[in-house]
């Protein structure tokens, strides 16, 4: 990876993180729930889009550089594991066992299915 591509990956990650802050706030002002829907929506959509990108890259419709910048960069910065894990632990500390388990393992299943669906969509488009 060239230094320029690396810098673009990093900056795209910054953009993704800023997009996460904005979308998280917009969802939170509309959905008032103890369940962390904002982070879930962000992580599921980011996983779906990374799947689509991977499907397109497998069909050589996306260059390696673009895949790195948008995938590892933007979508990597947009989605977050640390906040998701923090929210899971918060739910468990409040003894909301089911909500905590769903936010941990249920979201893992949902994001994994979203990524697989994305790969299929990307492959169909290629």
């Amino acid at each position: 990876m060239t230094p320029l591509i690396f810098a673009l990956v990093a900056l795209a990650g910054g953009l993704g993180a800023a997009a996460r802050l904005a979308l998280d706030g917009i969802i939170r002002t509309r959905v008032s729930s103890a369940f962390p829907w904002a982070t879930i929506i962000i992580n599921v959509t980011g996983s779906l889009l990374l799947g689509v990108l991977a499907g397109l890259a497998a069909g050589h419709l996306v260059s390696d550089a673009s895949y790195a910048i948008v995938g590892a960069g933007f979508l990597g910065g947009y989605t977050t594991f640390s906040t998701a894990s923090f929210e899971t632990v918060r739910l468990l500390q409040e003894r909301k066992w089911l909500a905590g388990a769903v936010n941990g393992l249920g979201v893992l299943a949902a994001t994994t299915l979203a990524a697989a669906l994305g790969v299929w969509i990307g492959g169909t488009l290629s």
Partner: protein
Amino acid sequence: MNGNDEDLPLDPDLDAAESASGAPRPIHLRPSALLLVFAGGTLGTAAREALSLTFPPIDGIPYAILAVNITGALLLGLLLESLVRRGPDHGGRRRVRLLVGTGVMGGFTTYSALAADTARLIGSGSPAPGLAYGVGTVLIGAVATWAGIAIAAAFHRRTLGVATEDDR
């Protein structure tokens, strides 16, 4: 709350320095907050990408991303618990939360790569390593987050000598 004597603003979302020009904006739409998260996210993503390039996957399992996500989970637990025990979320504490928590840790850790790699491993014909990678990341990540919170709480009690009701 935690022995902090700062005066609280009427609206905790309102920072005095940012409210001079008319109606306050919610944090997530303020250019200053977006800029802090952008800067932190750029640094965090650079660190993740450097580690993931230095330590490529072994047998298809991205150990660098595993380590990044678990370390980031521990550090975010440590950071958020430290901040909340020092006082309400405004001013400098909020700026640190946005820059380091939402920005650096948010950009450093990633869920999309976790999901895509789990899907790829499960789909490659031998689902056991994929399940172990995905479920292992979530379970160890939760323990790491809990450990970060516990370390910050213990540090706060011992070093600052501040005990709150729930600590007793």
